[in-house]
């Protein structure tokens, strides 16, 4: 289940934010916020995607690198929100 989330997230990030990037370069542990891939606009777009796809509600204070900096962390975050 978690792997499915990760794969979906990776596809989404490559499609929306990194078009043309080789999938091999984007690892589940690649830092997204620190490297500038997830800026504020991209973060809001990603949040909308997460809420729509997984039926969760994200709070403003949850937009932390702890939750969103890597695909691994995003998947964990989604998992924790879905209980």
């Amino acid at each position, binding site marked *: 289940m978690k792997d499915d989330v990760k794969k979906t997230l990776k596809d989404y990030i490559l499609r929306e*934010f*990194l*078009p043309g*990037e080789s999938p091999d*370069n*984007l690892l589940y542990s*690649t830092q997204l916020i*620190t*490297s*500038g*891939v997830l*800026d*504020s*606009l*991209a973060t*809001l777009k990603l949040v*909308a995607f997460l809420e729509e796809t997984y039926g969760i509600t994200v*709070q*403003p*204070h949850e*937009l*932390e690198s*702890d939750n969103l900096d890597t695909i691994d962390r995003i998947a964990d975050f989604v998992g924790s929100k879905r209980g």
Partner: protein
Amino acid sequence: VSLTQAIPSPGLSTQASSERAEISIPRYLVIAFELGLFLVVVYLFNIESRGFLHLGILAFFGWLIHYFLPLRYRLPFFLFLSLTGIGLVFGLQAESWSAEGLAQAAWTIGLGLVLIALCHVPGSNRVRISLLAAVVIALAAARAGAVATPWSAAIWPVLGSMFMFRLVVYLQQVRQSKTPPTVARTLSYFFMLPNVCFPLFPVVDYHTFLKSHYDSPDRHRIYQTGIHWLFRGIVHLLLYRLIYQNLIVDASDVATRFDLVNYLLWPYTLYLRVSGTFHLIAGMMHLFGFNLPETHKLYFLSSSFNDFWRRINIYWKDFIMKVFYYPIYFRLRQLGNVAALVISTMLAFFATWILHGYQWFWLRGTWLLTWNDALFWAILGALVVANSLYEIEHGRTRRLAGTALSWRSTLLTSARTIGVFFAICILWSLWSAQSLAQWLGAWSAALRPSDSDVAAAALLFGFIAVIGVSALVLARGVAEPAFAFGRSAAVVISSAAIIIGISFPEVHRNLGPAGRTVAASLMESELNRGDFANLERGYYENLMDVGGFNSELWEIYRAKPADWRPVSETDGVEPIDGLPFFSLKPSVTFSHNGVQVTTNRWGMRDRDYPKERSQETVRVALLGSSFVFGNGVGDEETFENLLEDRLNEEAARFGGPHYELMNFGVGGYSDLENLHVLENRACGFDPDFVFLFFHSDTRSHPLGKLANLMLAGQPLHYPFLEEIVRRAGVDENDVERYREDRYALMQKLRPYEQDILERIYAEIAAAARECGARPIAVFIPRPEKFDQGGIPELESGLAREAGMPVLDLSGAYGESDLAELWIARWDHHPNAAGTRLLADRLYQALKDSQPSTGFQLPMASQEQREISQEVVRQR
């Protein structure tokens, strides 16, 4: 709650924790050596302040111990160092301990503890916020001077910088966090070590602060990164000095296109001062295990306005995003993505503007409300909104670290980076300007071709080349090499060796003239000529506000006590409609800038004298401004009193007349008031001599006073002023308009600055002769490097043309350290040691020039006496 409770190590394995504890004596020695070099550089180049050097020494010895402590003791030890640092910086003044300073440190910590305690009052969050709000309002009233406090104003900037933003972050995150705060964590967060030296402090995020503590398995990497950042900060600060001392052009000096390019491009680079100090702060935090993220990231290479906002002052951006942008966006998103984004972005920039004023309030005691500050944030906000809408529509080229853009994208990114750089430069120059008219006025130089156009083009091309090529390299994905301890240490040590080498006079001598100028400006930590003129102007034109961004003047004004003011704003003067605007009240004693000022029955800051001059008395009327008045020195320490005492003592010993030096000088008077005072007051005392004192910046002051007369609708008193106003083409209707824009009126009158001075000197000379006195002009250098180049030709030439002998007091301060002669860092009038040197130099000048002035000294030879008598006879 235990003080030594270790911070849970988020994301760290036990193995990593054990690796953290690894001790490597060779690396320990290398880091200690690098830190020692850092302290040498701070000392040699007088980086920031003496307090920072003391704090650096504390950090050095603290780190030597910290390194060997078990992890659980490191945070409490950091707290111990932080509190000690506050005591050290407040308590150690002029290399000796001050009980008063230590008391201020105790107040700082005590007030801080009260604020922190209020964050933990049992009850609901609403109760805590209400209590905090009540206390903060009370403190704000005290900060504004409405309430007297037992602590000194010196603690406000420090206390303000520790709590003004971090309280908000702390309250918000403690509420949301699952981990309870500990005493050590909380106190370390608020009192963190470098803060006491840097009131302009990055808004460190509480969660990041905790999370980053020893979050790397290799703690030597954290320390070495810190050292690296400390030196990077030094490089930023030295580059800043180079630009600040040599390349900044004042708006009033913009005459050619080359000046205009300089005026527009360099102010933005002065931001190196902020990024430099933030590197010092973050670097020092690394030494104690806080692996904080970068505070700035290649902000000169921003490829869009959004990118600029992301790269410059990253901690501030994160704070605004977390506290304002995201919460507002989430509340509004039912309006649709675009509407929510536009409103939340504009409100985020509005909050930035307001908080900029709020920050200014805690640091300075007054709210910053300037047109250019508002305009700057409004324009930047609008640009970021437009940029965001464009990115929503067209997307943004992103890439993973280390990967390259295509050549087409690279060239486009490079071109955009150049465009953004120039746009920010122009916006920044507007922010730094003192008025919109001043800024727009500078642009008129673009219409004037001159010989320097080639230089202007070369400078522009130079900027384009440097920014363009750097952006190109960045876009091609030239990644930073992976961290290597040895390489980093080698870079640091070689950089330190070069920087220290520059400080040696033996090296200076072999650098050639340009190299010597560069080296001298790297060592220079004082105001440049333009800012000094602005500081001076405060005394004469009451322009005490500084532009939106001027860190040097801002620092000076921040340090200045709130009750430090011109004499015109004290209760020792009475206002007058028209010239001379105000005069000293007779027979009063009042406090002014830390000293007592006593006036005689005639309203002079002087001893009492009879109205009638006796036959055996040589009477001198001294005309001038604050330097003659004796701003900041005691009644008996003015140079005219010191000289009068000397003359009378020598006269008593060797025989000679009695001397009466009458001080008609008043702080804030220009030569226009001096002329008025001579005609209406000084001549009534039947002086034998009139001494008119000038320094190298007095020439522009009458212009400002003429403008004040016009704007107040007062008569101009002198036909020559009316004639100049007519020639300048200013009529009464214009005056109405200029009330809103004094600068524009000044610009109209400025071409006549020399004419005004010429006429005033002629009038002063004529008025002195008419009342039977011999006029003498005296150049009095300020204890300021700009005044040590000799007597200004314009004033001395005009004085001679008017028939006044000129005395030159150049060299009065000898080899003294000029800063040691200031009454305060924010006020460069000479202190008692300075006025004594001036008195001695004036005595010597009178002695040397006796044949031309006819001023008889007590020790004069028979021949000199005869010359004097002849001069007096002729008169």
